[in-house]
């Protein structure tokens, strides 16, 4: 049945809470998750500069705090105290609304992320579909940000950003559709429960189509968060940092924070769907809080590994031209994603949804007799 964090805690401590206590617990849980995400967003900027420095044989920020760890706090303070000017002929109402839409779209997706079997904020039955819908708000926010600042660069950057985000949403949606086909449920917790802890149980190696699907999802997710080789809308060289040209101070910080948290969310969905999420081997300590802590640690370890790959890709691959960007999406990713979908439908039909490993094992067992 549907388990939220409150019903898990009441189950654990065997006490059912009155409605007001439920709201209090939820408020504390949401407050903790948002702060952890803001911290991760901040540390991501630090990690990005440190890793890029490492890749380019130089030392990243190490002045502020031990090894430069408090660098992002320094940036935050600077952002707050910096004057944010609104251009004279900008559209005041939408200028203020755009960063709010972006942040709303990204923070609302945190409700369904499967941190561990019990500690998920809420295990919606339409988990991944809700996540896709809410993250499409970011595309609208970026377009409005570009339009509202009423300067040629921002408007062109906003149009290109929105066009890129919505066109790369198609391969991502079709790949997620094919994974839902295998796991038979939309809620992220159920998808993770159906995978095994060891790589043979992961959906990544379930069948060759889902193996290709992982890479399509990863490329699409990179493009959807405007990162790595696809960061054309905010390309410094051509569009003078694209849609957030006119933003300064705190409003610009919201756009950057939303982008970094969205990269984390995208990597979290990739681990939940393809890399076996929070499953730990032998289901060690399933009922106790220790087991939950281990599961959360496993989930964060896998997500940070993917985050490292995202940052690593950014500093190795050159930026794509606009038409190459669109050709890759429409002429390569979407057809392969559709082919994967039909392939996985046929696989589930013919082999009754068993993974490659299971089929080989059963074949060996039968031949062994």
């Amino acid at each position: 049945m549907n388990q939220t964090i409150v019903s898990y805690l009441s189950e654990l401590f065997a006490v059912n809470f009155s409605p007001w206590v439920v709201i209090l617990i939820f408020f504390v849980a949401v407050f903790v998750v948002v702060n952890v995400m803001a911290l991760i967003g901040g540390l991501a900027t630090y990690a990005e500069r440190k890793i890029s420095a490492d890749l380019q044989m130089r030392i990243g920020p190490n002045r502020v705090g031990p090894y430069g760890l408090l660098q992002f706090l320094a940036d935050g303070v600077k952002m707050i105290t910096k004057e944010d000017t609104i251009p004279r002929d900008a559209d005041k109402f939408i200028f203020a609304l755009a960063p709010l839409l972006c942040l709303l779209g990204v923070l609302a997706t945190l409700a369904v992320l499967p941190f561990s079997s019990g500690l998920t904020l809420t295990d919606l039955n339409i988990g991944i579909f809700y996540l896709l819908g809410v993250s499409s708000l970011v595309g609208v926010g970026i377009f409005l940000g570009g339009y509202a600042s009423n300067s040629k660069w921002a408007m062109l950057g906003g149009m290109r950003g929105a066009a890129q985000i919505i066109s790369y949403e198609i391969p991502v949606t079709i790949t997620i559709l094919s994974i839902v086909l295998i796991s038979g449920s939309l809620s992220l917790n159920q998808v993770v429960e159906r995978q095994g802890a060891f790589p043979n149980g992961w959906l990544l190696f379930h069948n060759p189509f889902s193996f290709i699907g992982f890479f399509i999802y990863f490329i699409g997710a990179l493009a959807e968060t405007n990162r790595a080789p696809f960061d054309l809308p905010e390309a410094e060289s051509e569009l003078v940092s694209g849609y957030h040209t006119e933003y300064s101070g705190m409003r610009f910080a919201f756009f950057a924070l939303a982008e970094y948290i969205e990269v984390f969310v995208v990597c979290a969905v990739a681990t939940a769907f393809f890399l076996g999420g929070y499953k730990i081997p032998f289901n060690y300590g399933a009922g106790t809080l220790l087991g939950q802590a281990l599961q959360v640690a496993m989930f964060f370890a896998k997500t940070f590994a993917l985050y490292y790959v995202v940052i690593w890709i950014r500093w190795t691959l050159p930026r794509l031209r606009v038409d190459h960007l669109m050709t890759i999406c429409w002429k390569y990713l979407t057809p392969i994603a559709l082919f994967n979908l039909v392939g996985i439908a046929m696989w589930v039909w013919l082999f009754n949804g068993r993974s490659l490993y299971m089929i080989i094992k059963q074949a060996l067992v039968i031949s062994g007799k």
Partner: protein
Amino acid sequence: MFLNVVFSLSALLTVSGALMVVVTRNLIHSCVFLLMSLLGIVGLYVTLNADFVAATQLVVYVGGVIVLMLFAVMLTGGNNTKEVLSRFGFESLPLMGNVKTYFWGILSAITMMSVAGNLIYRVAQSSLASVLEQYKSSVDEIGTKLLTDHVLSFEISSILLLGALVGAAIIARPLGSKQLNEEK
């Protein structure tokens, strides 16, 4: 208790969004207010225990139709299209037209309101209300219904989408494209 809070909040969002769509002059603002109204309708669907329809509305309308509208506004003259002043110079009021249109407008408004009011009054009397049972997801039921009872409409909707895709692509295709060269 939480149901009433969510219902009143999303109803307020829907109603104020729809009202602002009528009132604003600026096209982009009316698109943004339509977006606000659609988010309110997502909240209403949630209170009606229709979680999959709410998610579909979020994905298709908020993520697709609003972006389409915004692109279309940018492609057709952006925001600087000047609205024609009405004969009596009511530039601020969006209402226009001569006495005849106002007369027929008010007449049809009265008949519509009386029919709708009558219907709502009778519904309020009939107190058609069933118990809202525990939260259960509708995705599985919709899936089985789609594949068993409504398979025909499921397949026909793909043909509808094909027609919309090809038709709109032909209409929106810029003039100097490939087949123009073939004719040369």
